[in-house]
């Protein structure tokens, strides 16, 4: 019972956001932008990321309350803050965390000068946590049912997913013509840990009654599917969870496949359209699988001394367990990756004159210094998809310093300003991006924060000509 309260608390206190990478998207001087659109118009002779440092990204936030709301060191009682946070939240508020670290990555151009095909590949580790705020259950834990006679506490609000996985991927993109770039990426997922409980239903109800004091019903259809977790919950487990998860993430035996696809198209020289779909794929969980269910209907009446039925268990615990048994199943199951869709349209202007002194590079492609446009991001969730709309401005400053600023409207914030830059010193590329800049005056009050950071070595396509 205590455990349930702890889990509830944890659920309410962890904060997070979606996987929108609005600054990185279509940031063509950063190879990692291929991970958000395999059809990004990017060229290189070859590149490789500095192992473990080429792509680090994290995403935290919460659509209703911030870390400050809960943990501020301001003398207000924690219980009061928790209560306020729960009251502020609605059942559609989301709490999610996403983190990605590239272990290694690289890419190269195929064949001779006439070949316009590029390969990119790598391995990254990803952790996802996504849940809706189970407001009814939080209220029940905080207040009990006394204040809520006649109310049904909705168990379907319990919706949570957690996953730690590694992704092995290889992608290919080709400049089909001056106007069109197509790309795709195949992915092999290896799941180290999965917990999914998204199809719950039922209610807990207390009303008034005539024969008994209350009419108390628990109707439960709860299911938690998990793989790779059971071991840690055993009493005699004494290993290191972190290293065991890391080990299983690569050799766990729960595998899946998926793909990304993307396109860049120039209807006119200075108009660019892009679109991508990321993580269309599934993972089949067959090893270390454990599915817990609580399914049943129980009406609690209390002790009735003149009712004798020898077949009916006499005490409330046995009665409850008979009505809503805890079953453990070991069925294999499949989870779908959250699918992400990105699209953008960009208008470019201000032709580059940086290469004027050295006209030896006979580019038939005009380089523009500025670009403005809009982007759309949609991600699938257990309920309605999450959507974000971004307006952006990108500019090339100095030589080899690209910057991009974004303004995003989504369910977490209506004034999310992001900024990113990428700079190349010789072959060395450094990029950093973050969003919710307005909140940086006090990051703890932000409802969400995202950053990406990475280091690469990029050998440009034209470097052989220098």
């Amino acid at each position: 019972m205590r455990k349930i309260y702890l889990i509830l608390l944890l659920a309410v206190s962890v904060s997070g956001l979606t996987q929108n990478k609005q600054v990185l998207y279509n940031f063509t001087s950063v190879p990692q932008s291929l991970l958000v659109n395999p059809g990004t118009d990017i060229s290189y002779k070859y590149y490789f990321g500095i192992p473990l440092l080429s792509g680090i990204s994290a995403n935290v936030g919460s659509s209703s309350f911030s870390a400050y709301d809960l943990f501020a060191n301001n003398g207000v009682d924690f219980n009061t803050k928790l209560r306020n946070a729960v009251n502020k939240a609605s059942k559609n508020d989301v709490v999610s965390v996403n983190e990605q670290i590239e272990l290694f990555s690289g890419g190269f151009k195929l064949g001779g000068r006439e070949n316009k095909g590029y390969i990119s590949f790598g391995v990254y580790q990803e952790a996802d946590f996504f849940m809706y705020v189970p407001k009814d259950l939080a209220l029940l834990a905080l207040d009990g049912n006394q204040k809520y006679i006649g109310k049904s506490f909705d168990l379907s609000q319990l919706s949570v997913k957690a996953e730690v996985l590694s992704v092995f991927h290889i992608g290919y993109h080709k400049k089909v013509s001056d106007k069109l770039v197509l790309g795709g990426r195949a992915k092999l997922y290896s799941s180290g840990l999965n917990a999914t409980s998204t199809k719950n239903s039922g209610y807990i109800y207390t009303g008034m009654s005539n024969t008994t004091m209350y009419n108390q019903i628990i109707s439960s259809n709860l299911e938690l599917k998990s793989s790779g977790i059971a071991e840690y919950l055993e009493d005699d487990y004494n290993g290191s969870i972190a290293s065991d998860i890391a080990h299983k993430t690569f050799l766990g035996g729960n595998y899946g496949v998926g793909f990304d696809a993307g396109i860049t198209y120039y209807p006119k020289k200075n108009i660019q359209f892009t679109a991508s779909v990321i993580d269309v794929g599934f993972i089949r969980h067959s090893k270390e699988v454990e599915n817990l269910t609580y399914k049943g209907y129980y009406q609690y009446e209390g002790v009735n001394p003149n009712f004798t039925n020898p077949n009916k268990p006499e005490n409330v615990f046995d009665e409850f367990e008979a009505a809503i048994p805890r079953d453990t199943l070991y069925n294999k199951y499949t989870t779908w990756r959250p699918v992400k869709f990105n699209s953008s349209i960009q208008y470019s202007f201000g032709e580059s004159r940086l290469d004027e002194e050295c006209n030896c590079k006979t580019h038939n492609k005009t380089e523009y210094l500025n670009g403005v446009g809009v982007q759309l991001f949609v991600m699938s969730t257990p309920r309605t998809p999450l959507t974000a709309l971004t307006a952006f401005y990108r500019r090339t400053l100095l030589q080899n310093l690209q910057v991009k600023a974004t303004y995003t409207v989504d369910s977490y914030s209506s004034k999310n300003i992001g900024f990113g830059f990428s700079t190349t010193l010789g072959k060395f590329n450094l990029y950093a991006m973050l969003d919710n800049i307005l909140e940086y005056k006090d990051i703890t009050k932000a409802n969400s924060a995202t950053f990406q950071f990475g280091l690469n070595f990029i050998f440009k396509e034209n470097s052989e000509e220098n």
Partner: protein
Amino acid sequence: MKPYLHNMFLRLIIVAVLFCSCASDLDFDQTKDLTLEPVIVANLTYFDVKASAFVDNGTEQNVFFDAKDFDVFRDSFFRDNLKKAEFNFEIENTISRAYIVGMVFLDENNQVMHDTEINVPAYVNTPNSVKHTDVFENQTLDLLKKAVKLEIRITMLAGTPLTADSSGNLKLRSGATLYFEIK
């Protein structure tokens, strides 16, 4: 190489500024102060006894029910976190006799941990409903937590004799209000 170094320096400053942010002092140790104080209401016991049950072969009798399991405190969650309890009884009598309804909470060794007696007046054409509340705190609560059985005894007081055909019922419904403090 020199301009590169110069640029590099500038750029490092830009990076440093970018990652510079203010943050309020957060105190995650506060979670230790977490105290949940839910108030739960639940059914306790109920019965509905007909007047005829107090007559056996023409002789009046009291009704003593067999002791029933009452073992919510078998669960350590209840033992550890319950800070206060209230038992609310409501009795409705439509029999023309007065009663004493006794609730006896017994421990494993059949020792009385708590005993409540509720006086119920006889029915005289108008329905009467008796309400009674027991509050358990500190020592009384500690005793209650040892209870594993509940015995209900209905003693009939003197009055107009009942027959097997006498009308009326003695009804009881009751609920518990449990005040938890979960740390």
